């Protein structure tokens, strides 16, 4: 009969009861009028300025949530775990690897993705196109996100700053030298140069 008990567990405090009736009277006595607690896995996040309330599973990565569930396919799965930076998004101002971040950890966070940056016409986008920073383009959004986080922090980066910041992003097509030009130019444009 033990198992049956678990059928009647209180959604507020998780106490268990033998019958629904007992549960009901417990709830009326102890929790009347309280808003129902959020179910486990419900997170609130702001993505590209829009707020979302989403039910996520414990094993979902932020990448999976954004890419597979929210259709924000600009974040790319390249190395498949933490080596390439192509899944980079900005969370509360810092570039993070969305494939290495659990969706559940993102409750209350503000996230920017490439889609948001493109919609806002960030000068990096134009500079990237102008300087041919893409070949296959698969790694490109990840680079731009990393560069955007850099420029947010440091509007006047040196060549070395750019290199060091982008060194964690892999590009199999080897577009690296072009990124340097684009990021420095975008920085200048942002400064109104």
């Amino acid at each position, binding site marked *: 009969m033990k198992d049956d008990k678990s059928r009647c567990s209180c959604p507020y405090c998780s106490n268990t009861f033998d019958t629904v009736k007992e549960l009901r009277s417990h709830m009326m006595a102890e929790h009347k009028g309280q808003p129902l607690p959020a179910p486990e896995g419900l997170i609130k996040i702001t993505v590209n300025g829009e707020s979302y309330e989403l039910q996520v599973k414990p*094993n979902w990565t932020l990448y999976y949530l954004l*890419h*597979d569930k929210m259709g*924000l*396919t*600009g*974040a*790319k*799965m*390249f*190395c*498949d*775990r*933490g*080596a*390439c930076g*192509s899944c980079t998004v900005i969370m509360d101002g810092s570039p993070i690897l969305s494939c290495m971040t659990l969706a559940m950890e993102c409750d209350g966070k503000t996230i920017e*993705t*490439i*889609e948001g940056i*493109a919609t806002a016409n960030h000068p*990096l*986008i134009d500079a*990237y*196109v*102008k*300087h*041919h*920073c*893409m*070949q*296959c*383009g*698969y*790694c*490109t*959004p990840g680079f*731009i996100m990393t560069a955007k986080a850099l420029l947010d922090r440091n509007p006047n980066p040196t060549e070395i700053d750019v*290199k*060091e910041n*982008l*060194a*964690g*992003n*892999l*590009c*199999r*097509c*080897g*577009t*690296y*030298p*072009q*990124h*340097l030009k684009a990021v420095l130019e975008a920085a200048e444009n942002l400064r109104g140069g």
Partner: protein
Amino acid sequence: MANKVLGDYKKLEAEGRYQVGADVPKVTFREIGKRGIHRLDGYEKASGQAIYTRDIQLPGMLYARVLMSPYPHARIQKMETGEAEALPGVRAIIRYDDVEVKDRMLNGCYFGPEWVAPRLAGWALKPVHPVLGDQAWYEGQPLGAVVAADSEDIAHRALRLLKVEWEELPFVLDQEEALKPDAPILRPEADNNLIERPGETIEKGDVERGFREADKIIEFRAKRNAHLWAGAELPSVVVRWRGDNLELSVHEQQPYHAKMLLSEWLKVPMNKITMHSPYQGCAFGGRGNPANNSENGMNILAALLARRTGRPVKLLYDRREYFYGESGDMMVGDFKVGAKNDGTITAVQMKNVFAVYMGTPGIDHFVENTKISNLLCKTSTADVSKGPAWWCRCEQLPNTFCFTLVFDHVAAELGLDPTEVALKNDGFEDYDTTELSKYKREHGFPDRDSLRECIGAGKKAIGWAEKWHPPGTKKLPNGKMHGMAFTWNHEWDDTRGTGSGAVMIENDGTVSIIGQQSDIGVNPWTTYCQIVADELGVRYEDVNIKPFTLDHGYALMSPDGSANLCTNGEVLRKASQKAKKMLLELAADKFDGVTAEELDMKDSVIYVKAAPEEQRTIVEIVARAMPMSASVALWTKPPVVASAWHNQGLWGRALETGRPHLCRQAHFMEVEVDTGTGEIEVTKVVNVNDVGKAVSPETVEGQMYGGTYMGVGRALTEEMVWDENTGVLLNRNLLDYKYATMLDCGPIETVIKETGMGHGPYGAVGVAEDIATVVPALLGPAVYNAIGEWIDEYPITADKVLKALGKSQERD
């Protein structure tokens, strides 16, 4: 003989054939060759809007994954699938003994049936490769079972619930070991591990005579360990059935070819298969064949699962699973070279032993690119317990590896400047540069000495005159040893692509290029639009191509073999010329008393040549040229659309193709070697490429940068490492398998030469494959120049540097 009247088909065939000779452009270049042209795919890729196969999801779609072998050589004796089948969310499992797959082989490779015979194993994969077999030839091989489930995760869990009884078999990893008499035999039907393949011995002249003529004999041994193309986007395929029609999105370099193979296997007619090739996250040859579960095995399995479940299926690999398809230069070579004191090479002999490879033997560039008379190359290829090896940017790797090492060893041994040794031996097939000049003049090419020009430009860019020094003599203020090196080659101009496409003038006067093609990042579409714009006389921004939204039968040459632009440039040039003729004929009606011949077009405006102020816009002309129209109107006209086909010639040696390579490339590298840690830093690279004609200079530069980074990574760090005791590949991820990051190479200076001596349109050659292929071997000579010791085993890692330095200390 009287000229035969050709029918329509024969006419098309004839006009599609490559003609030997210089291509003197007949149009004014407005867009072609211009910098700053808006890159067609740029915004989509930068903004994250570009969709790749991996991004595609369909309603109700299932996820499929294949089992991989934990052993390098094993057989499945028994498999229990019950527990996996019972896992909630599992929708179908196909086993190796399922009637649909049992004993069914993959099609093999597309060179035709003669290449898939068991005795030619090593070409595409192993001798007889089933779509879903019970035998593993290497650790990590897909085999045994494929599962379709509601999520990737469930499919993955289901694979772990399979109970497999394996019979482990003996394995061998090293190609030289594999050829020893006591090695375990990997193929049951064979009595040794030797893979027979054509062209095992290549001989020209008489090397013994060449050695006798030499002042010096140079001998060395060199080795290249396995590396992998490891593209950005992991493989996947999305399949759905519509009745008996099949629709797929593939991650394929050659989608039309993939359609053909799938159709053959499934017995679904080609006209019932729609194949989309969205943007492709890298290919480099790796999205050709073995990478695709050998020969489209993954497409087949996904289609079978989709049929069985009545649902769309996406079959995918993760990074760990997708660590096979080595570059085909796993080789060890023994070299003997004869040279005169002035640098003239009198004989080159090499004995190369390859592992599981089908590719080039090592000697070809000496034949194609030098005047050296005496050459002997003996190759053997061994079956080993490693994954399939294939072309990866590009199959010429063994040829360039041997070429650079021989030239640089000779220069070092003779104490000569390597650029001088190069110039001494330049030529083709036994002929020297005088003969090349004669060929150029006879065929309408400008008679320029490409190699001399490339070397001159490169020396200047790197500061050769000031910096070049004898080996092991230059210590820098930072305590490191400075080294520099040079290598050279011909340009990749032996292209043999075939493509078809069409140019259509839409009713609003804009121009569409029609032709399916995979985009793998070489910016082809921009260049096509440039060519069509100039050939038609329209504005660049009026031309567009939508190659993955249609399935119309025109298949542009796939982006491989360095044949993309050289083939498709011709296709689209011809199609544009035909379309222009049609358009002007139609336009003549709109002008008073003027014939089509008296009209021309510029900036999308049609005008009378003799009276340019008399103009019509294209839209005025084509508004009624209807591909289709709902209105039954007598005044509609046929559409202005023209197709063309082009075959860019033979792939082969000059004497077979009639096309010696005329354009050359030269590369220079500077390194600093830390003798305390063995660490090598590549501080500068100069690439000089005579591309004949740069249609899009930024795109050429992109290939030069990218090729250099790939080349440097291959030379410094890229290596697949197997555990000798278990045969397991140890570095199946991009943390332990390292390719170059932004910090791994100093400044790259690119010099583009345009001599117009290529065999492609406007005198162009291909440039996407060669730099990554030529650059790697350059590291050895650079390190030798720094420390005075040769390290001939690639990649050249710090431990090898320390070992080499230890050797020199022992000697001192």
